[in-house]
């Protein structure tokens, strides 16, 4: 296990390094300048500013400087928000993003599991059809449409929850719900088909034959086996939630990272683009890692000791 962890960590660092390098180089291909008043900037002013921020140096040197600072944990300063470090910007914004993302994921997974399990157990009944319909709708309608609907009906018409803004805990509910829709749909669909498959397996018949009560069969044999592929799904789902927050944060006025990320690309705020890319990649790698570890917990047959697994 220890060797496995060290190996994974090394891979993670290498992957991050490649992502950082690729992003840095791709960013150089974007046209324009990070200066806010590009429209009015004369050539000579631009040259002076470039010199001030070291952007007049060769790309290779800029790259080395960046990597050098990065290793020391310095992500630099934002161009757009003068005087703010990228670290403090991320620090201020990550809380709200993580909160709605996590709530969406947790809530979505629970509801998805319940829906999927019920519909598998009541296969081809009205409940099953309803839950399949919900799953199909959830998959095919983008989350921002749900966000707009939730905002209008629950926020404006009924007035139960805040329309937008980030004032108190209630403010987090609608964005989390909007984010959870895709999760509910994906998880429900997956667990349902997995359950149906497992229910038809010989060992389930055996368990029933040896007189185990129904809930014992379902919990010990069916769900546990059906969960493994669902856990696989959670990794990509967590990532899609991270990107899903971009739009949801904008709609509900959540002071999070997602909106900042798109904005920083539009205004070419180099250091912020790099910082947030780095954060997202690190999160992604971490989530994939957690999923791998969860496998081992759910299925004793998967052995993490073997190097070949990585």
């Amino acid at each position, binding site marked *: 296990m220890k060797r496995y962890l060290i190996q994974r960590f090394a891979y993670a660092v290498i992957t991050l390094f490649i992502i950082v390098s690729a992003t840095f180089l791709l960013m150089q291909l*974007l*046209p*324009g*300048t990070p*200066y*806010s*008043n*590009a*429209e*009015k*900037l*004369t*050539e000579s*002013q631009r040259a*002076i*500013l470039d010199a001030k921020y070291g952007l007049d140096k060769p790309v290779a040197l800029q790259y080395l400087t960046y990597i050098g600072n990065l290793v020391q944990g310095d992500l630099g300063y934002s161009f*757009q*928000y*003068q*005087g*703010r470090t990228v670290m403090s*910007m991320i620090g*201020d*914004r990550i*809380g*709200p993003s*993580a*909160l709605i993302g*996590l*709530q969406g994921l*947790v809530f979505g997974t*629970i509801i998805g599991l*319940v829906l999927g399990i019920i519909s598998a157990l009541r296969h081809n009944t009205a409940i099953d059809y309803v839950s399949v319909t919900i799953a199909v709708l959830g998959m095919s309608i983008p989350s921002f449409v749900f966000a*707009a609907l939730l*905002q*209008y009906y629950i*926020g*404006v018409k009924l*007035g139960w929850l805040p*329309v*937008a*803004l*980030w*004032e*108190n*805990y*209630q*403010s*987090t509910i609608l964005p989390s719900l909007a984010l959870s829709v895709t999760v509910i749909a994906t998880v429900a669909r997956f667990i349902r088909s997995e359950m149906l498959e497992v229910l038809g397996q010989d060992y389930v018949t055996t368990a029933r034959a040896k007189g185990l009560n129904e*809930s014992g069969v379902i*919990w010990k044999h069916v*769900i546990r086996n059906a969960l493994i592929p669902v856990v696989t799904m959670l990794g990509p789902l967590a990532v899609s939630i991270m990107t899903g927050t971009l739009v949801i944060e*904008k*709609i*509900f*006025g959540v*002071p*999070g990272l997602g*909106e900042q990320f798109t*904005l920083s690309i539009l205004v070419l705020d180099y250091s912020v683009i790099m910082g947030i890319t780095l954060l997202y990649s690190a999160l992604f790698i971490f989530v994939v890692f957690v999923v791998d570890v969860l496998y081992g917990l759910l299925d004793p047959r998967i052995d993490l000791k073997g190097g070949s697994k990585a």
Partner: protein
Amino acid sequence: MNKKWVSRFMAPAAAALILAGCNFSGGDESGGSSEGESGAEGDGSAAQTIVLSEQSDIPTMDSTKAHDSIAFNVLNNINEGLYRQNESNEVELAMAEKHDKNEDETVHTFTLREQNWSNGEPVTAQDFEYAWKRVMREAGPYNYMLVTAGIKNAEAIMNEEVDADELGVKAIDEKTLEVTLEAPNPLFETLLAFATFLPQNQAFVEEQGDQYALEAENVLANGPFVFSEWQQEQGWTLEKNEDYWDAENVKLDKAEFVVVKDPQSGANLYETEKVDRVKLTSSLVDQYQDNDGFTNEKASGIVFLRFNHNHEVLSNANIRRAVNMAIDRDGLTDVILKDGSTPLYGVVPEGYYNSPEGEDYRELNGDINKGTAEEAQEFWKKGLEEAGIDSLTVSLNIADTDEMKKVGEYLQAQLEDNLPGFKLELKAVPFAQRLEIEKAIEYDLSLSTWGPDYADPMTYLDMWVDGSSANRMDYSNPKLDELVAEARTDTDLSNRYKTLLEIEKVLLEEDAAVAPLYQRGNTYLTRPSIENLVIHPAGADLSLKWASVK
């Protein structure tokens, strides 16, 4: 059975995150103005509190580095320079009580009034000297405003030829500031109302170091309001400054600003009375135009077509005039855009720039190059003959925003319909690329935008001078250059204004050098109970000094 799983893995993680602090702004204070809080028992007067919205956070509160209207708006309301824009967009004495000039108007002496910073320190002449030199030293994004103002050595400092200490500004004593100009400048007072010319308290700025202006408590106020709260990405609060010299004329107690990025959410917040003023996009106009609070506000930005004057056919004035006349601007603004934009037949927009006698620039110069499709075709035919061709294919450089693409497609249809043999290819690129192509003059036609730097027609006129960095189309007319040079130092304001009118005539009546299309506009939902919210054309968009709730 699910419960177990949940309690084991998910719940603790979620709880930990909630505890990790999410910077909630604490909602109970931010109700809209029109409900509650008012002195309900008796006097019937409304609470002087309003909630406004902006579409993003304040990039910086450091006036020497500020570069966008959101920052300018806050700075304009919490700080005050020597001059301030009043309710009719003219500048009037503010921090300065008295303004004396020497005979040739190159040395200006300002006497400051008694006013303290919000930390109790007096506002001194040194504060102005320090801040202006700091703009130059830090190469602030608007340092060229000091050059435009003609302050001695500003240009040399900007080009890094002399040290920032050599700037022509000097504190004679605590209350006397002396500014030396390179030459007399009729624009000087107008420019002084701009945020770049605000004072800063040296001791405070240095004490805060790199934390200066990053939080509400790291900023000092000397204007009508103080900056009492600032939550990153969420909003900020201004409260009345009781120590302000003109506090008796400030009626508003509190103005909250919330960051609302999505216009539909903004409209929903307006409807639920959480916010009193939100900006709409054209897609929302149909839905809300019958609302009491719906307003169309003229903006000062313009959208126009640049012609590449090196192009062998587009260098022909008849062709350019034909293009000018072939475009139906009303259709563009009323059918396609529907966002408060209005047709424009000139480079100086309407409604902001009055002559010393109080007449609007646009009214005085009228609609230039406005014509029918038939007139356009006449010029077109003449132009084609002169060029010795019978058809023309050119490309249009446009930014790939929704607005610009819509306009581009409209222009394509109009020009190809009205001018036989004209073919327009649209080349949509990202905004930054559009600008680069324009600066390199590697286009045939370019769909351009311009916004004013200061509240004077000159900001739309001197850009056409030969070699100006904003010309970007190799246009050159010595007569225009001469007129601009004349207006720059003419301190006889009536005469100067006549010259300004003349410049536009040379540019458009004589040369049809560009094709103006429309003046930008904004549509808002504004709570009708709010009075005297003053909207300015340049610099800060908004003054709250005179605003009140009825």
